[in-house]
Structure formats: C-alpha cells, structure tokens
C-alpha cells in the first residue's frame, strides 16, 4: 500500500489525466494572455507552466517518459488550452506536431536522446518548414545541406518560425545536398546550442500575437546522425504524421477557441443583469444564436470524424505505409484544415453579430470576442487555404469513387 509520502512523490503528470491537467492551467494561461496579446510577447510564463505540467511530453511514448497519449487526447487538450490562450495553445500544438514526427520517424538514437528531454519539459521544439520562394509548399526545400567529414552544415533562411527565438530544439526541413533537386527533402534535428539563430524580423501582427512567428536565419553544424531521412522520404513523414497531426492539432485549437467564445456568450445571456440589452424572445436573435451553435457543432463533428479516421489509419497502417498517399485520405485531412479555419472564424463573427457592439466588438470584461476575432483571422492564412484548395481540387479528380469521410 502506498503512503501519503509516496503518493506525493509521484510526479503530478502521472497522477492526473492530461485533460484535467490542462484544465488546471487554463486560468493561468488566461491571466497571462492579456499581456501576451498587448505586447505581442511569446508566452514564456505560460509555456513554463506547460513544461512543469508534463504536457509538453503528451505525445512522447511512455517508454521515453511521456504520456504516450492518443491523437484524440491531444485534440482535447488543445481545445482546453485554447480556451485560456489561443496563442499558447497553438505554440503547444505545433510542438506536439513535431514530437509526433520524431516519435514516428526519427532513428532510435535521436529518439533516445531527445524524447526524454521533451517529456521532462526541458525541450520546446520549434519547427522550421517555411522558406522563401516555395509558396509554403512543404515538400520542397531550396536550402541544401553541406557536409564536412561527419558533420552536416545547416544554413537556412526561414521567413516564419513560430517561437523561433525561444526554441530549445529545432526540426528543420533541408534539401539533402547540393546535387539533389528541391524535392529531396530531409529533416534535421538540432539542439539550440548547435545553432546560431538570428531573428531577422519583428512581430506585430493582427492576432495570435503570442506565437511570435519571426523570420530567422539559422546556421550551425550537427552530426550526420541527426538527419532524419526515413524510407519513403519526407513526403511519407508529411502524409502520415506531420500534416494529419498538424491539421488536427490546429483545428482543435480553433474549435476550442470558438467553443470558449460560445460559452462566454451563453454565460452573458444567462446573466439577468447583463442580458437586459438583448431581446431573448426575438426569433431573429434566437435564430442567429442557433446558427452560430450549428456552425460550432458541425466543426466539432468534422474534427471528431477526422480524428476517428486518422486513428483508424494508424491502427491499420505503420507510418511508412503507402496507404497514407491515398487521395481520399489526403482530401479529408486537408478539408479539416480548410473547414475548421473558416468555420471557427465564422463562429466568432456570428457571435459578435449576436452580442453587438458592447459585448462583441468592443473590448470588455465579459467576453474576449474582440481578441478571438483577430486571433482566428489567421487560421485561413497559416498554411494558406488558397494553396490547399488547389491541392484538394487536383486530388478530387483522382478519387473517382468519391470516398467520403
């Protein structure tokens, strides 16, 4: 039988469910979010709480000290965190995306070195995939690795690196070598001390101001053993882990933010004092509220269906399986990003319409709709919907059976 002392000695992360842990952090994230938004600051204090909670290792397999949690749990945690601070949730979500890539595709040596440090909260992973001149196309890189002996030399200009100034580790897409075409993409793992990261641009955006997605020049040297180049190439990493986990994690953040907005609106409308300015008997008012709720529920349903499909795919197929190249699967997961980014923003817009100027459009003490409107405007622009729609249009021509989600 365990004593009280023993129970206390068990790390918090192992005593609480991840979702319950996240719920404990929400008030802290929310309190910090005001200054984070005002000053466009990286949420250092909130990330420190996430590090302490163990949630940075949510997707780290148990054998490496993490929770070994499912994609569904990740999405639930992201939704909870986004209710506190969408920027912090998005930073965490993108970190989880990189952890999934490492867990699914990195060689054992890298996993043994890096994953326990991530689980311990020591390493926040920043992702470097953007590059000038490739229009956000994930599967190309015009920055070749060079080699000296057993070392690979990294020199990379990146126009957008979320949390770039604060990463403890970096996962960087590079072209394999100077002779290879840009389609020969490999991933490079680099610890912060192995790199020099020069921030090249400031950060003063409309919303998601805490994500501190700066432009950076990244240079350094790493042993060749830190190159991740699995069979099937980077495209396989993208279609089996990076894209699905990324789209699910982002969509969960946006859904969580939109749901929190709806909760704020309902709380306000149930408050006998604050609801005095609204006619709750008006058919028009009720219809508008119902339309916003319908948007939110369809968003949640599409997110859950996407998680079901991904978990089923992962149950049936290893990460290196060509099944992940299927057009229908790629259409569905791309559509999640498209639909979630548009719908979550629409929900905020609808709620502002419902609540009007005072509690919708203006900054006020009862809702954060003004900030959420700015935050969620970014959703269709990051990993731009325009380009994703073209890809899905082409993929639609290949799926002659029209295999639905």
């Amino acid at each position, binding site marked *: 039988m365990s004593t009280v002392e023993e129970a206390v000695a068990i790390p918090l992360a192992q005593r609480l469910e991840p979702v319950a842990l996240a719920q404990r952090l929400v008030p802290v994230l929310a309190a910090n979010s005001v200054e984070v938004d005002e000053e466009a600051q990286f949420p250092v204090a909130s990330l420190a709480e996430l590090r302490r909670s163990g949630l940075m290792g949510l997707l780290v397999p148990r054998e490496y000290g993490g929770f070994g949690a499912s994609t569904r749990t990740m999405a639930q945690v992201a939704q909870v965190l986004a209710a506190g601070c969408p920027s912090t949730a998005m930073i965490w979500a993108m970190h989880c995306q990189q952890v999934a890539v490492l867990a699914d595709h990195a060689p054992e040596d890298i996993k043994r070195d890096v994953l326990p440090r991530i689980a311990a909260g020591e390493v926040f992973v920043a992702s470097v995939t953007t590059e000038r001149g490739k229009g956000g196309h994930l599967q190309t890189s015009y920055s070749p690795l060079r080699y000296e002996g057993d070392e690979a030399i990294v020199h990379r200009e990146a126009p957008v690196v979320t949390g770039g100034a604060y990463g403890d580790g970096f996962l960087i897409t590079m072209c394999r070598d100077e002779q290879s075409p840009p389609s020969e993409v490999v991933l490079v793992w680099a610890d912060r001390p192995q790199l020099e990261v020069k921030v090249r641009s400031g950060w003063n955006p409309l919303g998601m101001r805490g994500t501190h997605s700066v432009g950076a020049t990244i240079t350094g040297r790493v042993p060749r053993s830190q190159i991740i180049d699995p069979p099937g190439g980077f495209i396989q990493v993208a279609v089996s882990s990076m894209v699905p986990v990324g789209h699910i994690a982002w969509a969960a953040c946006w859904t969580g933010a939109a749901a929190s907005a709806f909760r704020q609106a309902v709380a306000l409308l149930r408050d006998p004092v604050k609801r005095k300015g609204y006619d709750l008997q008006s058919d028009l008012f009720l219809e508008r509220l119902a339309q916003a709720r319908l948007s939110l529920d369809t968003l949640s349903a599409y997110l859950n269906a996407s998680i079901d499909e991904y978990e089923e795919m992962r149950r049936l197929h290893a990460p290196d399986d060509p099944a992940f190249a299927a057009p229908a699967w790629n259409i569905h997961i791309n559509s999640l990003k498209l639909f979630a980014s548009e719908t979550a923003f629409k929900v905020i817009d609808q709620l502002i319409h419902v609540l009007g100027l005072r509690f919708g459009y203006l900054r006020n003490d009862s809702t954060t709709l003004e900030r959420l409107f700015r935050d969620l405007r970014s959703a269709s622009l990051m990993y731009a919907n325009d380009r994703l729609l073209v890809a899905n249009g082409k993929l639609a*021509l290949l799926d002659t059976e029209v295999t639905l989600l």
Partner: protein
Amino acid sequence: MTELSISVAGATTPDPAFVALVRRHLKYLDPAAELDPDQELKPLGLDSMAGVDLLLDLEDEFGVVLPDRYLTQETFSTVRSLWTVMDLLTRGAGEPV
C-alpha cells in the same frame, strides 16, 4: 475531340513526342539534359500535384481515361512505365489484364 498525334501501339521505345509531353511536367529537369526512359521522374519534379497535371495531359492526348488501378507510383515512376501503361490502354480493347 483530341487528335491522337503520338503513336504508341507496338513501339518498344517511347515516341519522342511522348517524351516531350512528359518533360513539360518535370520542373527540375534541365531543358538541355537528356531524359533516359528509365530515369526516376520524382526527383525531376514529378510530385503528386505535378502527376495530376501530367495525367490530364496524357488522357487528353490519348483520348483515354486512366483507370484508378493505374494511378500508382509505379505507373508514374519513369517514362517507360508510363509508356507501357499507355501502350496497353490504347491497344485494341485497351483493357489489359
């Protein structure tokens, strides 16, 4: 109706016009470089998106629909593998086993 300008039937070597059609979709191939029929096309720029554009061009050129079972990485791996499939599809009944 698209006029069939490239003759496939029975030829073991890909027609130069066929090679030229494929080349239009290889963004990383030096225009001055030779294209060997057995050279891998993916490193030359034939990713999945470029593959769809090539598919549509081939279907226009040959007036056939490529059945789903040929929409594989193998089919699109080299000029020769593409040529072999188009040869099978355009020959006689056009439905290879």
